[in-house]
């Protein structure tokens, strides 16, 4: 008898749920629109330019992507947490200037400047977040103010201390060589020189993804972006989470700032203006909702990679680089529309 009766299924499948194929599950991920865009763009440039797929060219593209991508990690997390930061572009330069001016003025080991720069970067993040949660002003206003103030401080203090628009060279200082090795060297993989920032970028994306998907802090980040009041009501430390996110952006800015400094030996004090939008664009192309509560760190990375491909691909295809900004705008528009469609379809299924 027992052999005749069909074994009852252990977990009774719900008849209301049509089986979701792995494909449709994949389609529900926030970064899938960007992934499709990245593949299309890659195939496009690979077909118009023979050099685009050369290992050396790929390393260059990855390097270009990483200088956006490192910041896009922090900016994506912040955007998922429901805020954005307009001061990131100049904050990177502030960090680099702090390190260079401090160690030059006191003729100290370059590493002292590096540590001071880290403190300054984290403090800028903390102040952004603190003003935001205390005043409850929109992050647009708060970080626009920090953006303007930092732009002014960068120019004024560099001239005051160093006497020029560019920070003085620090290549003669102790510790410069080792700092250069940490922040701006290349690692050879199969004869191809890959910049160390690419590895920083990958590590940051991995850590951010783990935090977002597998830790309670990640849960809080989604919650404060999705509905801060609901999050507060169930006991999520909303204030700490938001301030922490701004400080994470500051940390990413510090890494990139140190790279900018040690890749050469000086920094132009007027640089960085406008870069904040590139980071935000990378996050948005990668599927982060501008209103918060949805997105992924991997998405931001793909967004940065799309940026890198478009930026260098135009050069490899031997077109006029004037077209780049147009391309970027078009990409942003297409990516967000694709995201929207994919998300709606995924929700219907």
């Amino acid at each position, binding site marked *: 008898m027992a052999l005749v009766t069909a074994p009852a299924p252990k977990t009774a499948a719900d008849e209301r749920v049509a089986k979701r194929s792995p494909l449709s599950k994949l389609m529900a991920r926030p970064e899938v629109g960007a992934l499709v865009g990245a593949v299309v763009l890659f195939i496009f440039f690979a077909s118009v330019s023979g050099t685009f797929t050369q290992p050396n060219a790929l390393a260059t593209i990855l390097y270009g992507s990483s200088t956006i991508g490192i910041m896009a990690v922090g900016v994506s997390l912040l955007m998922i947490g429901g805020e954005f930061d307009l001061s990131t572009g100049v904050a990177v330069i502030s960090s680099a200037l702090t390190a260079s001016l401090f160690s030059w003025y006191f003729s100290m080991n370059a590493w002292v400047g590096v540590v001071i720069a880290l403190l300054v970067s984290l403090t800028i993040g903390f102040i952004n977040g603190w003003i935001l949660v205390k005043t409850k002003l929109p992050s647009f206003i708060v970080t626009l103010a920090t953006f303007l103030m930092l732009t002014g401080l960068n120019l004024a203090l560099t001239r005051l201390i160093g006497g020029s628009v560019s920070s003085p060279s620090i290549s003669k200082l102790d510790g410069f060589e080792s700092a250069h090795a940490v922040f701006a060297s290349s690692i050879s993989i199969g004869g191809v020189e890959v910049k160390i920032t690419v590895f920083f970028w990958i590590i940051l994306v991995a850590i951010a993804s783990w935090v977002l998907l597998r830790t309670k802090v990640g849960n809080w980040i989604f919650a404060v972006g999705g509905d801060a009041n609901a999050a507060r*009501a*169930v006991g999520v430390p909303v204030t700490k989470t938001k301030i922490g996110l701004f400080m994470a952006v500051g940390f990413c800015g510090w890494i990139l700032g140190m790279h900018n400094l040690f890749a050469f030996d000086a920094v132009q004090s007027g640089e960085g203006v406008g870069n904040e939008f590139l980071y935000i664009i990378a996050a948005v192309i990668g599927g982060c909702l501008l209103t918060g509560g949805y997105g992924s760190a991997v998405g931001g990375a793909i967004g940065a990679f799309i940026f890198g491909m478009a930026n260098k691909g135009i050069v490899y295809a031997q077109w006029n680089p004037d077209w780049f900004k147009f391309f970027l705008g078009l990409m942003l528009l297409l990516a967000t529309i694709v995201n929207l469609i994919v998300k709606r379809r995924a929700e219907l299924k």
Partner: protein
Amino acid sequence: MNAKQIDQQTLLKDEKDPLTHTPVHLLSLDGVGKHYGNIIALRDVTMAVDNGRVTCVLGDNGAGKSTLIKIIAGLHQHDEGVLHVMGDERKFNSPRDALDAGIATVYQDLAVVPLMPIWRNFFLGSELTTGFGPFKSMDVQKMKDITLKELAQMGIDLRDVEQPIGQLSGGERQCVAIARAVYFGAKVLILDEPTAALGVKQSGVVLRYILQARDRGLGVIFITHNPHHAFPVGDRFLLLKRGKSIGYYDKKDITLDELTAQMAGGAELAELAHELEQLGGHTEALKEVQAEVAEVTDAAYESNTKRH
């Protein structure tokens, strides 16, 4: 009897319920008041919540219901009177404080984060973790399993805990929030207008969950402006109007009609009827209102005579 209850008895030996003269209160308010600047939002409110009992707080919009729950839930602090939890005088500085004291609140609109999956919402703010130090991560599988199990016990048979909670119906979302509070060991459950935005059938479902929470031994505070929802499930009724308590009844001392009459205020209904008449309202509708006025006045008269 378990040790906890004996403990409570000794702790509360000097406390008396003004209505039932029994000495156990999970939570009690005595003469509680709150003002925002020169606006008095709440004054002199006295009520009690017990294990396995439902205390209903009724009142129209602006009656002070929200202020009252915000005080109990730790979002605001009271300026007058005392708030006792298991016999200890308390003043909560944050929702976390109230949660730690075993008081969980299910808000009408901000119970959950819509874009997040059900299981993430269920454990939001109280995530289960494994590992230690900087490598502490969430125990995702366990959290998903518990969510599914707890919701099944509340009678919601879920399709997929990975679904964003925003895709659930209003009633289901309320239930997730209730199940969450029950699972995390809430002793007092505050429900802020859980039926306000729901249809008749969904409201019935939510009322059933209220009774289930009660039967699990929780003290429930059910905030509503609908006496028809409050009366079948409530054990005590606190009526608020313009920030003041206008009545506090045990179920045996009041009927649904009296409750409705107290809520609506007979005089106001009469005024409405008069106004409709002047506006040349539809005669049938007018008759209905007038009939109701008569009913309400009767009931109010009866309840007055009963009390005096």
